[in-house]
């Protein structure tokens, strides 16, 4: 009898019931911190509040959670293109992650409508007296102006929504009809889709973060975000997968061999991110051109350097060394711990990229920049669990389904 119920459960692969509780708690935490965050906007500057501070922190929280959702989109298309058991077992989590993008769009609206003057120096082009900066802003006014900025943002979101919509829709259709052509459709869309993903990520990162310092530019910057967002999403997905794999219905279906593959990919993404980030640093450090080097000086002087050291050691070195171990990658719980740790370090890295722009030359701990990501994170996770529960946890009608599950039962190396 027990055998039978398990089979029945397996066929639907429903999300464990506890997820509803997590969803409520996440929503509660999100709402509480959101209230705190909004209150912070009206608190005096002396205790770390204020409207400018509100939007600075808003950008940090927004970019962090946007990264997780967007990384899910990129990974979803990547696994459609490469195939493989690792992609199939995390596909539903990735899909649910992409379906949080509408929330991110809602969160973008306040930033777009009210936030720009509080964030970007190019909004104040005409008021700037410093000659050199003024000249640069004049030269860039065709690109860095609010109208074009908003048009571009609309294009990015339109592209992201389109990719999200079709990939999710076809996947759901395949669940219903078991037709193979949907797999083909998804693969066919993912080729051009991933190109669009890389391009929109590049330009969005330039628009929303790089242009905080309108003088500075770096051609690898977009790729750092592509790698970073993918890494954020991958860490998040691994943590969720471990949670799912330790209870029915996925218990026994997603196994050590799957986590081994996911661990290897996590290591690859950690290395890829570090490669991009270090390349940029070494080239700018060696070139030592004043206009460029200043960007790093802002992030190394006045205490910020310690955050930089922490990023090198904890975002790269520590996970790198740990993930070399085969046993660790096959131990789901430990892998999840590292993944969550990397996710936290992704936040530290983003803090280090954004916040020094508003606090040049002196380290500042902004409590608002902690509150905001927690608030958005609560909403994000609640939204995510709500979406995750709408569908079976595995794409049962995928043509490679049996093979992918079977893969977990053989060791792999």
């Amino acid at each position, binding site marked *: 009898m027990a055998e039978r119920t398990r089979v029945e459960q397996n066929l639907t692969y429903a999300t464990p019931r506890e997820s509803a509780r997590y969803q409520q708690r996440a929503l509660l935490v999100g709402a509480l911190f959101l209230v705190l965050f909004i209150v912070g906007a009206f608190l005096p500057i002396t205790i770390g509040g204020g409207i400018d501070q509100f939007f600075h922190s808003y950008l940090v929280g927004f970019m962090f959670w946007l990264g997780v959702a967007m990384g899910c989109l990129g990974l979803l298309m990547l696994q459609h293109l490469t195939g493989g058991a690792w992609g199939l077992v995390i596909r539903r989590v990735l899909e649910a992650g992409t379906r949080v993008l509408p929330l991110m769009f809602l969160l973008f609206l306040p930033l777009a409508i009210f936030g720009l003057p509080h964030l970007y120096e190019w909004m104040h082009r005409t008021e700037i007296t410093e000659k050199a900066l003024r000249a640069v802003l004049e030269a860039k006014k065709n690109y860095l102006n609010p109208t074009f900025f908003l048009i571009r943002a609309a294009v990015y979101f339109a592209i992201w929504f389109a990719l999200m919509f079709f990939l999710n829709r076809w996947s759901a259709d395949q669940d219903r009809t078991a037709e193979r052509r949907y797999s083909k459709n998804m693969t066919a869309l993912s080729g051009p889709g991933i190109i669009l993903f890389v391009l929109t990520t590049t330009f969005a990162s330039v628009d929303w973060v790089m242009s905080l310092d309108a003088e500075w530019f770096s051609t690898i910057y977009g790729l750092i975000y592509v790698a970073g967002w993918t890494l954020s999403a991958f860490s998040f997905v691994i943590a969720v997968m471990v949670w799912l794999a330790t209870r029915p219905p996925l218990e026994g279906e997603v196994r050590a061999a799957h986590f081994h593959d996911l661990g290897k990919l996590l290591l690859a993404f950690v290395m890829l991110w570090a490669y991009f980030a270090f390349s940029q640093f070494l*080239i700018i450090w060696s070139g030592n051109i004043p206009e460029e080097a200043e960007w790093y000086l802002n992030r190394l002087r006045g205490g910020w350097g310690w955050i930089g050291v922490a990023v090198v050691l904890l975002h790269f070195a520590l996970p790198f060394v740990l993930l070399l171990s085969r046993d660790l990658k096959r131990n789901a719980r430990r892998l999840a711990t590292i993944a969550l740790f990397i996710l936290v370090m992704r936040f530290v890295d983003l803090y280090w990229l954004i916040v020094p722009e508003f606090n040049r030359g002196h380290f500042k701990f902004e409590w608002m920049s902690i509150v905001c990501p927690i608030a958005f994170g609560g909403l994000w996770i609640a939204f995510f669990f709500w979406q995750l529960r709408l569908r079976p946890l595995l794409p049962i009608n995928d043509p490679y389904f049996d093979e992918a599950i079977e893969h977990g039962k053989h060791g792999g190396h």
Partner: protein
Amino acid sequence: MPESDQPHDEVRVHETTPLIEPGHTFASVTDKISSLVLKRRTPLGWFIGFGISFMLFQLFMLAVTNLVFTGVGIFGTNQPVGWAMPIINFVWWIGIGHAGTLISAILLLLRQEWRTSINRFAEAMTLFAVACAGMYPVFHLGRPWLAYWLFPYPNTMGIWPQFRSPLMWDVFAVSTYATVSALFWFIGLIPDFATLRDRAKSRGWQILYGLLAMGWRGSARHWARYEMAYLLLAGLATPLVLSVHTIVSFDFAVAQLPGWHATIFPPYFVAGAIYAGFAMVLTLTIPLRKFYGLEDFITDRHLRNMAKVMLATGLIVAYGYMMEAFFGWYSANKYERFMIWNRMTGPYWQFYWALILCNIVTPQLLWIRRIRHSTLALFIISLVVGVGMWLERFVIVVTSLHRDFLPSSWGMYWPTVWDWSMFIGTIGLFLTLLFLFIRFLPIISIFEMRTILPQAEVEEEAA
């Protein structure tokens, strides 16, 4: 296992073309590949190909002799274009080498079994390409007999190399790369040397292959350590190959010159290297498999997969061009803007647009299924990409240098006959080595081909 009664073959629907034609056995695979080496008569086509390559190689010898006797003045290198054909060709060759390591190492880690029939050949290509690349830094020094000065060794002058220079990084990167590639290749060959030892008819070849096989006897313990070593080497070669072209890109990017000083250079150079390398692998394997009748082992699926890798890396390269152009404009820096504008419309505009045509426009044809399935089309596209990647290095090196910051220092650069002789000569060197390799060593890894036969699977009895 409850799933075992499900029809699995029906599931594998996309992969209609196998990696190895059905009907082969351990013996037939072994005999077919080793006979290419062991059969006594050398085909006439080989002599013709080798003859032409060897003649081109003589052109290299001639150019180098003149170079050593006369000096580097025989090249077109000048002021302001102080880096020219030697570095262009160095980068081109070393890039070509990268596909070999990629196929043997990265695809091994990704468990892509289709690499098996092309990895040996691609690794050989890597070694020969690195050898050709190595000629340029050595000979353009002017006093090639002092090339060992590049390495840090205790010397009577009491000085050391200057490690803040990317050129020193290059010395270490390229020599490490050459060493590790050679080891990887040799390790892969050991079991096949043993096969040749046991198959060779004449005493001389038995002894020679026997020495190279070092007493390999296929012991299970040996195989276990061997496989571990091979896997670890693959794990090391993967970041190594990325680091090599990254460091080559630092040669340029670390300078302050507009057009060179770009942070995108490392990934964009690496992608370009793999792109050119796969183009070269296709250029060589398509005629080779036809000539030696190896279509059973290097199937159409191999060619299609390589075409897909080419398309993907080509798109990354396109991203690189796009970022250069966009940030050239976005920077609002007059030197950056001039540089990119000068590339597109300046005296070398033909090179830039030819590069775009070869490297970006043409490969888009690979999106089309029919093109990917046409051997001839793949051959032509890979030749075009090979040319395109040479043009890319020409554009990066020459157009960035020929317009100095001061208009009074502007100039032009055109390669001399000796520049071309040396370049064409290294192609001769490359092909000469390749022909020797084809004649004396198994061009396909025999033991790895055995592993992908269905009979190699150990059938487990249902417990």
